[in-house]
C-alpha cells in the first residue's frame, strides 16, 4: 500500500545531485516504471519543460495529471489513457497520437496534434500555428482536435483525415488565421464563428453543414463542456472547411498517374 501511494506522485522539479531539475529521460523512465507496475493513476508535480512525457502510453485506464509546463512532444505516440494538463502545453503536443485523450487546461503551442491518427485532444484556450498538420484517418478511426479559443495560420495543413473544431470562445471575429486547410485532401475543419474565403489555403473550400456535421460538432462541444465545465453558446453559426478534391495536386509535379 505504501509503495502504491508513493508511486502515484512524481515531483519533476526535484533536483538531482548536480542541482539540475529532473532530466526528461529520468522523468520518463520513472513514469514508465509506474505504468509498468500496474498503477493507473499518476500525478506529476512541478513539471518544467521535460519532453516526451507519457509518450506511447498504451494502458487505456491510465490517467496522468500534469501540473506545471510540460515540454515539447507531450503524449507523443499516445496509444491509450488520459493526460490532463493543468497549465499550458508547449509545441508538438499529441505528436502522432494514435488513441487516448489529452486535455489541456490552458493554451497549446505550435504544431499541436502533428500527424495524429486517432484519439482526442481538447485545448481549453488558444493554440498556435499548423494545428492538426497532416492528421489522417483510416476506416473510421481518426483524431478529433478541439481548440476552445483561436488558432493561428496553417490550420489543418496537408490534412488527410480527421476532425478539427475551433470554438473561438472569447474571440472577436474569425478564430482562425490564414491558409486554413492548405493542401488538405481529407477530413473536415469546423470553425465556430466562421471565416472569410481569403483565409482558406489552396485545395480547401467552404461547404454547407449537413445533419451529420451538426451531430459531430455537437458531440465535440459536449466533450469540451464536460472537460472544462464551460457552457458553449450553440447558437453561433459554424462554418465547415472541406478539401476540394481527394488529390488536389494531381498532375502538378508528375504527369504519370499512379
Amino acid at each position: 500500500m505504501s509503495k502504491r501511494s508513493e508511486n502515484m506522485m512524481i515531483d519533476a522539479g526535484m533536483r538531482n545531485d548536480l542541482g539540475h531539475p529532473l532530466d526528461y529521460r529520468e522523468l520518463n523512465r520513472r513514469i514508465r516504471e509506474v505504468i509498468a507496475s500496474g498503477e493507473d493513476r499518476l500525478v506529476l508535480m512541478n513539471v518544467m519543460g521535460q519532453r516526451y512525457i507519457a509518450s506511447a502510453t498504451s494502458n487505456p485506464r491510465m490517467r496522468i495529471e500534469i501540473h506545471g509546463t510540460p515540454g515539447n512532444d507531450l503524449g507523443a505516440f499516445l496509444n491509450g489513457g488520459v493526460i490532463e494538463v493543468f497549465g499550458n502545453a508547449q509545441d508538438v503536443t499529441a505528436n502522432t497520437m494514435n488513441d487516448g485523450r489529452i486535455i489541456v487546461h490552458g493554451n497549446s503551442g505550435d504544431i499541436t496534434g502533428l500527424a495524429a491518427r486517432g484519439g482526442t485532444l481538447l485545448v481549453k484556450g488558444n493554440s498556435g500555428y499548423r494545428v492538426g498538420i497532416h492528421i489522417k484517418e483510416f476506416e473510421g478511426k481518426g483524431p478529433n482536435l478541439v481548440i476552445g479559443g483561436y488558432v493561428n495560420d496553417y490550420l489543418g495543413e496537408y490534412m488527410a483525415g480527421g476532425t478539427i473544431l475551433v470554438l473561438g470562445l472569447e474571440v472577436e471575429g474569425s478564430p482562425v488565421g490564414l491558409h486554413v486547410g492548405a493542401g488538405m485532401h481529407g477530413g473536415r475543419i469546423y470553425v465556430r464563428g466562421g471565416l472569410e474565403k481569403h483565409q482558406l489555403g489552396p485545395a480547401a473550400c467552404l461547404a454547407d453543414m449537413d445533419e451529420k456535421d451538426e451531430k459531430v460538432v455537437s458531440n465535440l462541444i459536449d466533450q469540451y463542456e464536460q472537460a472544462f465545465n464551460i457552457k458553449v453558446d450553440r447558437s453561433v453559426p459554424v462554418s465547415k472547411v472541406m478539401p476540394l478534391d481527394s488529390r488536389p495536386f494531381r498532375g502538378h509535379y508528375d504527369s504519370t498517374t499512379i
Partner: protein
Amino acid sequence: MEHDYYRSAALSLPEAPRVFAEQSYVVDIPDQHKPRMGSCGIAGCINIDGSLISGAKIEKMITTMSERENGLGSGFVAYGLFPDFAEEYCMQFLFESEEAQELTEEVLGNWVYMIKDEKVPTYPQRSMNPPFPLVWRYFVRPKKGTEAYIRTGLSEEDYMVRLVMSINDAVPGSHCVSSGKDMAVFKGSGYAREIAKFYDIQRYKGSMWLSHSRFPTNSPGWWAGSHPISILDWSVCHNGEITSYGVNRKLVEMAGYKCTLLTDSEVVTYLWDLMVRRHRLPVTAAAFAMAPWYYRDIERLPDEERRLANQLRITYKEAFLNGPFSILVGRSEPAVTMIALADRKKLRPLVMGVSDDGNSVYAASEECAIKSVQGDASIWATRAGNPAIVKVGEGIVRRGTEAPFLGAIG
C-alpha cells in the same frame, strides 16, 4: 582568408561531432557524444523600470532548455552593464594569442583613445575543449578631430563599425565580439551552463539580458561564431537558418559590412544596424522588410499601409530573410530595447511572458524557460513576422499581435 579560421588551432571546431554523426547507429557511444535531437534555444529578459537583473536569472532560463543545445556554442549579452563608462564604447575581444592582442592594441591606438582596459575574468571548465581564448575589454572613444578621422568622412558610429570590421577581417586571431555602449557579449564554444561558468555570468547585473544556446546546422561551432552576434549596441540571438544568406550578404557587404564569422546569422545583425540606425527605419518597418507578408495578403491592407508594405518589399527585397528563424534583438540606443521576431511562416518557436506586476518581460523558445524564473508570468505568442518590442522606461510597446506598422505611420 576565411579558411584561416578553420585551420586556426586555437579556436577550431572539436572533431567529435563529425565522428559520431557517422556512427549514430552504434549503441555504446559515450553519453556526452550521443547524437541528440535539438535546435537552438533563445531566451531574454528585461526589466521595464531599468532595475538590474542578475546573470543567474538568464543562466537559469537558457539552461532550462538544455535539451535543445548540443554544446557547440552559447552566449549571453547584458545591457546596462557599465554605468561608470556609459559614454564609452566597450570593445570586448577574444584573442587567440598574445601576439593577436598586441597587434589589436596597436590598431586601436591609431583609431581610438583608450579610457580603460581590463582582463575579463574567465574560468575554464574541465568539461570544455581547450584551448581557451584570452578575453579582454577596452573602453574607448573615437579619435574625433584627428586628420585620419576627418578623412574617413564617417559618422562616429560608422567609424566604429569600420574599426571592428577591419580588426575582425585583418588581424589574425583577434575577434571583436561586442562594441556597443554600456553592454558586452560573453560567448564561446560549449554548453550554456559551461559558458555561464566560464564567464561567471552571475557576477554581472544588467537591465536586459539575451542569451542563446546553439545547435549549429550549417556552420561550424566556434568561439567567435557563437551568438549573440553584435555590432555597436546591436546584438542578435538567432534560432534558424537564413537560406537567403547570399542575397542578404550582398546587401550588407555593399554597405561596408564584412562577414567574417562563418555563420548565416551575422547578416541579421548587420541588417538591423543598416536599416534602423543608418537608414532610420522604424523597427516595425525593418521587421516587415525582413519578414514581409505575401503580396496577396498585402492587397488587403488599408491604403497607406499597403503602399508602405509594397515600398518596403521592393526597396529592401535583399533584406528579406528567407527561411525559418526566430530572433531576439537587443539595442541600447536610444533606450535599452528588446525586439522578438519570428519569420513570416512561424517556423521557429517564440513565446513571450510578462510578470504579474508587469515589470519583467521575457522572451524564449519555450515557455518553461520563462516559467522557471517567473512562475506567475502570463504567456502569449507573437504572430508570424510580427515584432514584439519592449523598452526600458516605456514598457511593452508592441506585443507582436498588432496590425503591421502600428505606431510607425502617422
